[in-house]
């Protein structure tokens, strides 16, 4: 055998060995807890929900799944459990489409929870890219197929996190590693599942959620230079198509699961912004909600809640970070309302809350904002 051939074999063997070592490290530490709940090493979690949820679905015990967008991201699982008497798993995804949400929910429902609590915005229903083209969603890991496992085990990023988690489990290194773990360098920086995507304890809630911020956001989005995007959201047919494919498809396929779907309390400014800059969009959104409500109340396994016209919340702009995102205090109110069955849509009058909202939007005067 020539020296070149020997070198080639040496190179290939060394490559295989290093790859096997990285895969073994990822398998042993299993940062996402894909194969087993953490035992050998301390469990660590990441705020990257699209990735983290694939592991949470497998490693956690739950009878209720909580889904939504950024409006549901800061809920604390232990609050949900305490107020609703369930064992919940929060799977909310920032900026998600209905396609992504339903894909994740379907994976969670494979473990047979009894209930889904689902925060729904109309804008999640759009022609989102196919889930396999979604670069942020490790779809094969949710599917638990060979490609997903291979991608996970052969991931350099995971190997780095694994090494970090391993180092953190060594008592003498733990304080130093914990101090260096800040989310900037290492994704798995959270030590408790309840803490995922929570606002930090030192977070300035009052300084972030207040009328000044909400009004500034309103001024920003209604500025003629920027308000054009509000008019983009007018494709009623597209929304209905995505709604039927994703939400209705999932609900119909799981008749034994109870779906508590709620429409979150946006600030009144969200609707007023549409009213003043793009009435066509507002009409389209109203029309979609009429369809949405009528369709959902027909399902025996759905309870629909509409919090959009709860005036004491939506008109108090101190509750908001911008025109839609509400404060953690409102998270608690929402859980209370769900527990008490308040603001539940009556199947006999599915658009009653919507009609009330329309009247509020019609009556609201922007001039009040300056006072």
């Amino acid at each position: 055998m020539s020296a070149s051939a020997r070198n080639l074999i040496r190179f290939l063997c060394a490559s295989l060995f290093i790859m096997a070592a990285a895969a073994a490290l990822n398998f042993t530490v299993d940062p996402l807890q894909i194969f087993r709940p953490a035992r050998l090493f301390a469990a660590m979690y990441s705020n990257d929900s699209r990735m983290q949820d694939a592991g949470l679905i497998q490693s956690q015990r739950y009878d209720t799944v909580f889904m939504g967008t950024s409006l549901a991201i800061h809920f604390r699982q232990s609050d949900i459990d305490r107020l609703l008497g369930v064992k919940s798993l929060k799977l909310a995804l920032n900026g998600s489409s209905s396609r992504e949400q339903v894909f994740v929910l379907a994976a969670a429902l494979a473990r047979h929870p009894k209930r889904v609590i689902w925060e729904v915005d109309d804008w999640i229903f759009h022609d989102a890219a196919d889930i396999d083209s979604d670069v942020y969603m490790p779809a094969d890991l949710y599917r638990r197929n060979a490609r997903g496992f291979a991608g996970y085990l052969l991931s350099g990023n995971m190997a780095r996190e694994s090494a970090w988690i391993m180092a953190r489990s060594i008592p003498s290194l733990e304080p130093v590693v914990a101090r260096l773990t800040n989310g900037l360098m290492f994704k798995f920086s959270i030590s408790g599942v309840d803490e995922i995507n929570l606002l930090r304890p030192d977070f300035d809630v009052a300084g972030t959620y207040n009328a000044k911020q909400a009004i500034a956001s309103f001024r920003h989005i209604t500025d003629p230079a920027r308000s054009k995007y509000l008019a983009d959201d007018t494709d009623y047919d597209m929304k209905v198509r995505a709604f039927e494919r994703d939400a209705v498809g999932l609900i119909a396929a799981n008749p034994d699961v109870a779906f508590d779907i709620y429409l979150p309390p946006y600030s009144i400014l969200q609707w007023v912004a549409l009213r003043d800059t793009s009435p066509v969009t507002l009409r389209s959104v109203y029309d979609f909600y009429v369809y949405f409500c009528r369709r959902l109340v027909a399902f025996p396994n759905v309870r629909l809640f509409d919090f959009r016209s709860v005036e004491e919340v939506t008109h108090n702009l101190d509750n908001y970070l911008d025109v839609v995102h509400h404060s953690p205090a409102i998270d608690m109110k929402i859980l209370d309302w769900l527990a008490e069955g308040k603001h539940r849509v009556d199947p006999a009058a599915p658009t009653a809350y919507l009609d009330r909202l329309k009247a509020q939007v019609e009556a609201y005067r922007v001039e009040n904002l300056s006072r």
Partner: protein
Amino acid sequence: MLFNSYPFIFVFLPVVLLGYFALGRRSNLAPVIWLALASLAFYSFSNWQFVLLLLGSVAFNYLVGLLLISRRLRAVPRFSVLTFGVTGDLLVLGIFKYAGFFAANLNAMFATGLVANILLPVGISFYTFTQIAFLVDAYRGKVAHYALPHYALFVTYFPHLIAGPILHHRDMIPQFESAESKRPNPHLILCGLIIFGIGLFKKTGLADGVQPLVSLAFGPVTPSFDRAWIGALAYTFQLYFDFSGYSDMAIGISLMFGIFLPLNFNSPYKSCNIIDFWRRWHMTLSQFLRDYLYIPLGGNRHGPLLRYVNLMITMLLGGLWHGAAWTFVVWGALHGVYLCVNHAWINYGPAVAPRFARAANIAASILTFLAVVVAWVIFRADSLTSALVVLSKMADPSHVVFGRGEVLQSVFIMSYAAIAWFAPNTQAIMGYDHKNRTVGEQLSAWQRRPVFIYVTAAVFVFGILGIQQHSEFIYFRF
């Protein structure tokens, strides 16, 4: 199919290599046909709707080329055939690449309501230019008669098809014709794997790693001074490691087949002036533009004024080649201006005293790098307006964030700069000499060879471990 994907590395490449060498034992032609078919399969994995266009382009140019090398054709008809061939190529490129841009500009000026939503076939700019060079050389009488399979492979050869390097027929077809390349050569396979591994690491470890920082300048939020610089520098290094990584991978793959591809990068950010930069960045495009545009326009043969005009035309068209958008035109124009200034400085600028030569060189390198970064901002931005916003923020130190995150990001960027400025490039590490068809000569004599093998194996594996779900090369869209 992407080079940085498991199916390519673990299935496609080994299968094509095995088939190529297995067929090479039987005949000299069969491996060429096999490689051409494999290249079409490679292209059709993600661009199946454009395979016919690619085949049509190959057939069209091959026939026009045959006419051009025919000795029976006289001068005037030959020129007409050349004009027909080049016009045909440019027309197809124009329709697929520039029709939308043209319609949008017409709309902006005359509100015509014209709409042209045409998908861009991946690699069209590369295979069109490759074939225009072939036609022009055929017209100049510099082309021998090539067999169709060799010509088809020259155009479709999968290591270069999507994003170059832009190949030259005189360089490639003799290699495809050679019987030697059809026998497996462990040395070339090893060197190919190492070069491929370095390229893969550049892409998945470096370019993809810095990519999130790019949005600091080019994201939805107007950046501060420091974030604009971090984002602009991040893009500067992302583009370099992405494209030079792709080129390394192409060279490495090709080397496993015993074929030497031309170099495309030579540490461009080490340049001490813009002329030097264009000799080091996307070298095969620069050579193409020089040989088939700048020199035919007259080059520097008609006085300094026309030389500057020719430079501007060449760079404007070079900019437009990258994409149908005003940002690319302005980027090309800016580099045209840079080149004119550089040439004028060489001709009319003051001479530097020898004792200041080193300091002047360092200053020139820094200035060149900054000029390139400014131009990349225009190249990367979605529109000229957003480019101006980023550039204005880069020039406005009154608004600075520089928190803990920005400090860490700056350190991160500096590590990239250190690699780009001070590390040896791939061809220096591997002793790759395209002209003399040699590579890794020092390997056999080197005492620390095993260490080198293990380190490069680690780099290769880190490249594989860095593969993310789907990460296209930036130059795919050109």
